[in-house]
């Protein structure tokens, strides 16, 4: 199995997960995205054993993300904070996706190490570290949202939102770069 086919699937998988286009339902359904990720990882997991965790988590997410087809993540409601089951569901889903991306970075790390391209290996590692620092700060800040006035949170929320989008794009570009390595795994 060539790594570029696998990473093409993974690339499209994450794109589907992150892009929501809703016409009554989410037509770019998250479960399909997670399935593509699962399918991509499965094709290379025999060569990269560290990917086993990502494979298991991706197939679990295919099932776990089914409700997102019909429900969108609740935005801050006008009436203030609601503390519904849906908030908990999306909190768990977001954390699970974060774990999946961590495992993806482990796979990328392994592949770039094997590729022998030291500079690329180092860069990929650094991107992973920055990605997780940004996401960690975002996750921590969002837990304080219920105890702070929404208005006072706006500037930092906006900065983190932009930083998050940038990191998502950087991650997608990195997936594409790994694909272009076109290496054969032994």
């Amino acid at each position, binding site marked *: 199995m060539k790594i570029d086919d696998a990473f093409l699937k993974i690339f499209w998988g994450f794109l589907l997960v992150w892009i929501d286009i809703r016409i009554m339902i989410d037509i770019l359904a998250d479960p399909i995205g997670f399935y593509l990720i699962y399918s991509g990882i499965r094709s290379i997991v025999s060569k990269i054993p560290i990917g086993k965790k990502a494979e298991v988590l991706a197939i679990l997410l295919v099932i776990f993300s089914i409700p997102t087809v019909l429900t969108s993540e609740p935005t801050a*409601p*006008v*009436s*203030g*904070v*609601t*503390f519904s089951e849906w908030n908990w569901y999306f*909190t768990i889903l977001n*954390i699970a996706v*974060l*774990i999946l991306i*961590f495992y993806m*970075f*482990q796979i990328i*790390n392994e592949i770039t190490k094997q590729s022998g391209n030291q500079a690329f290996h180092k860069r990929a*590692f650094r991107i*992973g570290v920055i990605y*997780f620092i940004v996401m*960690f700060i975002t*996750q*921590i800040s969002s*837990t*304080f949202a*219920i*105890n*702070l*006035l929404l208005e006072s949170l706006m500037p930092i929320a906006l900065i983190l939102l932009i930083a998050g989008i940038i990191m998502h794009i950087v991650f997608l570009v990195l997936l594409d770069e790994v694909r272009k390595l076109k290496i054969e795994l032994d």
Partner: protein
Amino acid sequence: MKDRYLWIGLFIVVCSILGNSLYFQSKQLEQPIFLNHYYETYAQHESPLTFYYLSNISEPVEVSYVTIDGVTFQPSIHNVFTMWTNDPYIPNYEQKFTHHYLQSVTLQFPVQDIPYAGKDGIWTFNEMRVTFTNGQTIDATIGEVKVINTLNDTDALVERRASTDNYNKSNYLSVLKPITINSITIPFSEEVSKNVLTRIMLDPKVINNPPTSQDFPFWYKDKFDIEPNENNVYVSNANLYPIHLERDDWIKLYTTFNPDHKSYFEFYIKLHGTTNDGETFEYNVLIGERVYLTQQDVNEIIAEKQGGHKK
């Protein structure tokens, strides 16, 4: 990339979620809390009175109806709900705080519905049973409201001007007939007088022996500059009376509220006196004061009111 860092990070995030959830829960009110209102109104004016309460920001509630001394009153302004709209419910609120809304309900007391007790023709209540649109019913202490049956006014005085500047109100009165003012009183003496200072300004020729020292409440000394006998303004107290006023004389009332007060006021300052014909009269000057709450005020109000419940 060691798994350990991921799990440490996630552990911190989970702790933060739990900590914030617990803190959020601890700030929730079991039931809305009504603030203190000191309102006085004349039945025939039928002027509506607005009552303020704190509700959870996660669960704002509107008042459906209230029952006072067995009589039910509907809010005079209803929220309009339309059947076909999917719009989420937008609460009507006066102020927004971290965990709470300050909401209000406006009630009208039609003359025919008022249960007068006693000979003085004053209906006084301190509590009301409030039913909210979510079905919850609470007994709320609301301060004190007096609905007075008959208004005794006089044609010896007339109010020419009234102005408001933050915590200071001034009312300018003209004298139409020769009168003697024997006292000036404010209602709800205990609770209100702690937070209100009434001073009067008189023409120097009217005062024979101006008081040499004046008695200011501590909060006034704390918050405002005091200049002794500034511009012939005197703190209203027994030594000042009686005051004899001729036709075309004037009297100016200065009413100052303690800037730290946390209640709503609407009442009449009463000038008691006699005309030269020997008739006694009282003249009413309407004073209203709303509070603008800070987050700290809200915390204190909740602590006070909830502390009171547990006793």
